[in-house]
């Protein structure tokens, strides 16, 4: 019966500890925004689909500068978009910080965002933000090819992703079809080259035994391990791996597809204001901070992403954002994600 006593003791301490933990966290229903007349109570709740390691230092900086406390809930961007849809008007969140435009679009479509003031939406390049003020772009992420430097020279890497259907690359290329950035690229391909070319390319890739991964990091690891020779990823994953592993640890190298190629488009991360926090001065201050000089410079230094506010330099060693910007492509044309997922499903990639 010793086990019974132990368990009873454990259960008691559980309840006590749980009570303590509960006392430490604030009541979610009492967060800013639920009271329309209150403009500032010095605190806001953020749902962050961006990683804690990258975002928390910026938030600490924001709190130090403004005195506004931020409660952050970290999870995957997708999960948070689903969570926000499930919570609806009852959401404790004031601001949603997203890895990609697609999730922001989905939340906006569910009528959960308040329209942002112009002071925020005009702070960034109009090509990289929402057209209706429902969310604001924060940083840019370029699509790139990563290659196994032990198997290939830089010159061997195709300049266009369209060449990847060549039998030469049979079984050697990795993609992440469920990844939002990959899907934005396919949408760009459809918009730039037409539906037929996009379909042919996808079918060609499937026939060419393209390797499927759940996400960008898995592709990069596969290239690092020599499992595949080429992978389609976002540029900053490589820079982060570089920071973790050092120059000598990087078997995978980067190659930027030629300007104008659908494979070199730039996706954006962004943020939106939840409807319930429309008049919350703290939430608005945070959004302003994200697109301010300090906020933008932070992302450049810490995440190697492209700043979207004019006047801030891109990270060293990267081609200029202007060189990657495709004049024929308007990012707002990339909202036909539904057609892209239908196409991906049809060719058997989803």
């Amino acid at each position, binding site marked *: 019966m010793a086990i019974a006593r132990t368990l009873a003791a454990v259960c008691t301490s559980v309840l006590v*500890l749980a009570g303590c933990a509960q006392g430490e966290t604030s009541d979610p229903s009492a967060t800013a925004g639920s009271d329309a007349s209150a403009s500032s109570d010095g605190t806001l709740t953020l749902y962050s689909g961006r990683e804690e*390691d990258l975002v928390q230092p910026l938030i600490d900086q924001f709190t130090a500068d403004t005195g506004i406390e931020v409660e952050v809930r970290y999870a995957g961007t*997708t999960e948070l978009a689903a969570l926000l849809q499930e919570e609806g008007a009852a959401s404790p969140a004031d601001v949603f910080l997203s890895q990609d435009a697609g999730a922001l679009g989905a939340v906006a479509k569910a009528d959960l965002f308040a329209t942002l003031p112009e002071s925020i939406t005009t702070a960034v390049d109009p090509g990289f933000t929402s057209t209706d003020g429902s969310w604001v772009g924060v940083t840019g992420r370029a699509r790139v090819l990563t290659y196994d430097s032990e198997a290939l020279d830089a010159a061997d890497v195709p300049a266009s992703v369209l060449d990847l259907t060549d039998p030469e690359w049979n079984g050697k290329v990795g993609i992440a079809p469920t990844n939002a950035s990959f899907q934005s690229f396919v949408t760009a391909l459809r918009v730039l080259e037409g539906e037929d070319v996009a379909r042919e390319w996808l079918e060609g890739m499937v026939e060419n035994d393209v390797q499927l991964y759940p996400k960008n990091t898995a592709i990069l690891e596969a290239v690092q391990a020599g499992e595949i020779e080429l992978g389609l990823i976002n540029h900053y994953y490589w820079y982060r791996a570089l920071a973790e592993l050092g120059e000598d640890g990087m078997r995978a190298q980067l190659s930027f597809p030629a300007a104008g190629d659908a494979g070199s488009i730039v996706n954006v991360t962004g943020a939106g204001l939840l409807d319930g926090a429309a008049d919350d001065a703290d939430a608005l201050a945070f959004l302003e901070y994200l697109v301010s000089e300090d906020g933008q410079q932070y992302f450049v230094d810490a995440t190697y992403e492209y700043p979207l506010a004019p006047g801030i330099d891109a990270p060293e060693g990267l081609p200029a954002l202007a060189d990657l910007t495709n004049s024929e492509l308007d990012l707002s044309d990339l909202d036909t994600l539904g057609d892209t997922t239908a196409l991906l499903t049809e060719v058997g990639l*989803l």
Partner: protein
Amino acid sequence: MRAALLTTPANRGAVRPSVARLVLTASAVVAAGLASIPLVYLLVRVLGAEPDAVLTALMRPRTLELAANTVGLTVAVAAACLVLGTATAWVLSQARLPGRRVWTVVSTLPLAVPSYVAAFGWVALSPVRGFWGAFLVLTVCNVPLVTLPALAALRMANPSHEDVARTLGRSRARAFLETTWPQIRPATLAGVLLVALYVLSDFGAVALMRFEVFTWAVHSAYTSQFDRTLAAALSTVLAAMGIALVWAERRLRGRESEQGSAVTARAARTPVALGRWTWAAPVVLSVAPVAAVVVPMATLLRYFTGRADTATTVGAADLASDALSTVTLSAGGAAVALALALPIGLLAARFRSHLSQVLESASYIGLALPGIVVGLSLVFFSLAVVPALYQSVWMLAFAYGVLFLPKAVGAVRASVGQVEPGLEDVARTLGSTRAGVWTRVTARIAWPGIGAAVLLVALTAMKELPATLLLRPTGTDTLATSLWRLTESAAYGAAAPYALVLVAVAAGPALLLTREAVATVRERRESA
């Protein structure tokens, strides 16, 4: 007068149990209702959608392909766990084996390793991917779910039948299958069911191994289409598969045949000498521990020692506070699971009826569904019914209870079922009150099995990730969420200590489980 004296006790006996039964049934209905929240949520989502959209989603050829992959993987892993788990249990309990205690502990350790950590280790180390990769990882991580109940049942089994069969000229294998297997079948199959349900719901390992099963499609419905309806429609297929598995297990299990064996007198058992197969025992026993524990831990240690100096540092204080919240929340989850499992399991063991079977089946559904679906269903429930508890530790502990309830229900039913009602009657005639019988006889004999179930729930809850991310209080970290956070940003070096501490913490209940298996036998012998 004489007649009245004779009938009074009988009347009392007839009235009291019916009240007890009524209370028990009502509690079980409530418990099963709470356990069915995920299913109700799915039905609300699916019925609220346009029927055309749901049909289109389900009728595409891809659905069939994913279903075939899911069924194939589930059957293969379940079969492999059945064979390996039974073999392991047999060697541990019947063979002449030096270091038996150590081996027993070692065979339980894979339970402490989350399948996504094991998969990560194998992906980093070897080219094994796809079906075989998923098969390997899910099998070796789940084998103890079969080994432990099979081991407990083997130790309880009456060996005399097998001895008789042997003297009648049966081969050892055939004698085992004909006499001992029927005795351990219910317990073993209950373990296999838990394995199969887990395989249906797993996303972490199959995603890393890039084997596309139903959970992959559910996840992709959220990821790329932001379509909760499609995700719900696909999840109902998983729920249906889960129900089919529960039904199949019930058909295969048959009547619990171990009832009363607790008081059977037994001859001392002579361990079987393995002869020229002596070398095979350590091989069989090492497969799962090496593949599920040694390989992933070695990979993690390599990352930890090989990492470049970076800004990502690991503080002992962070580790300790994460470990504390992990232990606290999982213990809370285990307590909830026990509270829900007791009425359902007791009803199934003592008042077996059509209703008790339906209630028991309902309690299994949570385990067949991906964590994100169960998580969202509890978001829905919490905001609608108890908004004050939303994103509180209470709701998270409740989620663990609902998710892992099946691990407790089966154990409660089997443990209470093992207590021979005759034994209770004897205690009653010796003057014990009904409550006294429960605490001194029934609970005492059933407790080790129930305690083991509580440990198993706590252990599993420690490793849970998707529902934790959705339901945890804002700002609260567990070892699993920290591990997720660091691997998301590819900081594997910094992630390694969290994985190691998670495995170490989860090894605690795992070790207690083996102690429990030994204690079970000793206590039963004493009570016999």
